[in-house]
């Protein structure tokens, strides 16, 4: 088990890879992809190549389905194999024993992503606090979204429940990158409780407008709104019809979301995987225009050493 991480880096800087901006790398990935429908997505405008963080408790057997690998392949993925330990166990002690197994499991998954034409970064973390780790790594890699995995079949239906103002730009970057198949459909679904200030119709319309501007065929985008006292339950119930859910993290950090905020509750109850759209943190907002590109080409890891 020499340094597997270096292998990932070598793949990025090797002759196959384009050490330039993420967008171009993606275009290249698509052109070399055997699937014809991939190439058609090449013309869509993506401002900031989305980075998706996949936190997986690999030692507990958590992984993502093949269809999800295919679906996420156009993004830049960061595969985070984490193992959460009780307080009484030093992280170092567990890493001595389990690091190799965790590394193997995450590299297997990384290979699946490589077969799908992507080039993921892998990290292995031993921690006493899952939320803290996810939050830290998400910040370090400038993640656009964090995946809460659930089993899923072929992915055509993307459900975007909107319950509060959302960063249309980020949402569009992510959705535009992800939907490229002929059958792909996006449903923008505004939900509100009675007497709420939030205007779901307007939010949904703005998001749809942003998607159209990016070149997404309006026929693939559906918008609707509901007034409901139980939005979380409604989303969970509707998840049976969706193949993946994209939603904003609740107010507060990723931490609070993952602790059992709405997104987590939805992921627990839902049949579909949930992509939690992260808010930009203030520190990411300023200097990150340059460093996000660096992230996408995988230099986060090397810059840390």
């Amino acid at each position, binding site marked *: 088990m020499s340094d597997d*991480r270096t292998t990932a880096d070598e793949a990025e800087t090797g002759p196959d890879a384009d050490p330039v901006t993420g967008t171009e790398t993606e275009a290249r990935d698509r052109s070399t992809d055997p699937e014809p429908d991939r190439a058609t997505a090449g013309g869509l405008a993506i401002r900031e190549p989305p980075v998706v963080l996949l936190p997986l408790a690999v030692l507990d057997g958590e992984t993502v389905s093949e269809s999800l690998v295919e679906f996420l392949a156009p993004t830049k993925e960061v595969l985070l194999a984490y193992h959460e330990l009780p307080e009484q166990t030093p992280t*170092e002690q567990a890493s001595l024993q389990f690091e190799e197994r965790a590394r193997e499991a995450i590299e297997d998954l990384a290979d699946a992503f490589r077969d799908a034409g992507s080039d993921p970064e892998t990290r292995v*973390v*031993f921690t006493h606090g899952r939320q803290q780790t996810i939050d830290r790594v998400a910040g370090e890699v400038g993640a656009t979204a964090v995946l809460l995995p659930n089993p899923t079949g072929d992915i055509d239906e993307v459900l975007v429940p909107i319950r509060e103002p959302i960063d249309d730009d980020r949402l569009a970057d992510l959705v535009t990158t992800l939907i490229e198949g002929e059958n792909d459909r996006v449903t923008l679904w505004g939900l509100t409780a009675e007497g709420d200030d939030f205007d779901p119709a307007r939010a949904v319309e703005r998001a749809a407008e942003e998607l159209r501007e990016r070149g997404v065929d309006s026929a693939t985008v559906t918008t609707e709104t509901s007034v409901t006292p139980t939005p979380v339950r409604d989303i969970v119930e509707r998840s049976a019809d969706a193949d993946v859910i994209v939603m904003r993290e609740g107010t507060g950090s990723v931490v609070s979301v993952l602790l059992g905020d709405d997104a987590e509750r939805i992921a627990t109850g839902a049949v579909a995987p949930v992509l939690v759209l992260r808010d930009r943190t203030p520190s990411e907002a300023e200097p990150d225009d340059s460093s996000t590109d660096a992230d996408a080409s995988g230099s986060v890891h090397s810059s840390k050493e």
Partner: protein
Amino acid sequence: MTASGEETVETDEATITDDAELERTLGLTGGLAIGIGTMIGAGIFVFPGIAAGRAGPAAAVSFGLGAIIALLVALPASELATAMPKSGGGYYFISRALGALSGAIVGISIWLGLVFATAFYLVGFGNYAAAVLAEAGVDVAGVPVVVPLALLFGVFLTALNLFGTENAAALQNYVVGLLLTILVIFLGYGGLDALGVFGRASTPETFAPFGATPVFTTAALVFTSYLGFAQVATVAGDIKRPGRNLPLAMIASVVLVGVLYVATIFVATSAFGSAALASFGETAIVEVARNFGGRAGAIAILIAGLLATVSSANASILSTSRAVFAVSKDALVPGIAGRVNLRYGTPHVALSMAGGPVLVLVALGEVEVLAEVASFLHLVMYSLMCVALFAMRRDEPEWYDPAFRVPAYPLVAGLGAVSSAGLILFMQPTSQIIGIAIMLASAGWYKYYADDVQLKGVL
């Protein structure tokens, strides 16, 4: 740092090795909770009666001396810990600075030292649990319940750590917080009362009725109340911003606990005479509280006593397990001792090596010997930590870059080394003999099992 032979980067949030990242999850509060939570039990809830019986009101000086010695060691320990923020604490510093033999003696004897300390805290718990039963009017018909209760709880705590995967750290924070609140109210009221604010003049008494020597022997006995600040260093790998939080947690917990101890003795000896206090035994402080606050006061202090002894015992079991891991990682004991159970995620072998011997010692029930042997073995480590600082500073290796540097280090570390070693001389002969025997056995084990071990990163 090249100490582990591979590329390791320490950031404020994680330790990043070639292969994996180890998240730092404990903040300053967590570090303080470990330091204070380990220490605070004994000095208030077990020793005041015994100490006052030995040294009179001058027992306050004994506690003050203990605090000064602890502080003299905490400073060098802080520097070493910020230079090597790794699990293992004192053992790690000494083995790297002074070599494998010194490391093995300290590493193995600190395991047993912590076992003695844990047993001592559990007997303290037994005393409080028995006092609670008595307060509740449960008739035990003259059957001694202290040791059985301590054993029962020892088994419970070990099992909890073996199988419990709930987050215990947050609980520890609340326990320590509640404990400090009760103590500050109690000592605040008692202190004002002793100064005559409430109109009752307290009994003036000869300050040191038995002369100076008992002050030192008592200091040696009660030093067990300060074992704990160095435990913060054993979780150095888990502490966020170690450069700031490690020294702060160690030094602040020693100062805070020292102040509380001295205040306790002052209040206790003001409320009762030393002789009366001594006759109350291990739970003397309950009678002091009853004197101030009646039954409610006694019950509050009984609850505090249970919390304090439980948190000390639990923290010590965890430290013991970490001490076992530290030596097993360096192959000084068989590697199986460091195994982690995948199902529960807990180091079951190391925890058993903590809990098992503890029960044997609890069954003996000798509070003073348990306390002194624990102190003896810790003091040896403390003294050698100060020596280790000299070794590190003399030819600072390239990787040695502590965020915290001891001011006037030859003076502080020199005094720390001499005073820790000196305190050992004031212990009972029984404790000294047991302590020396354990160290010799550790050296023997090293010669027999690990003579050929080459440690990475030794000076």
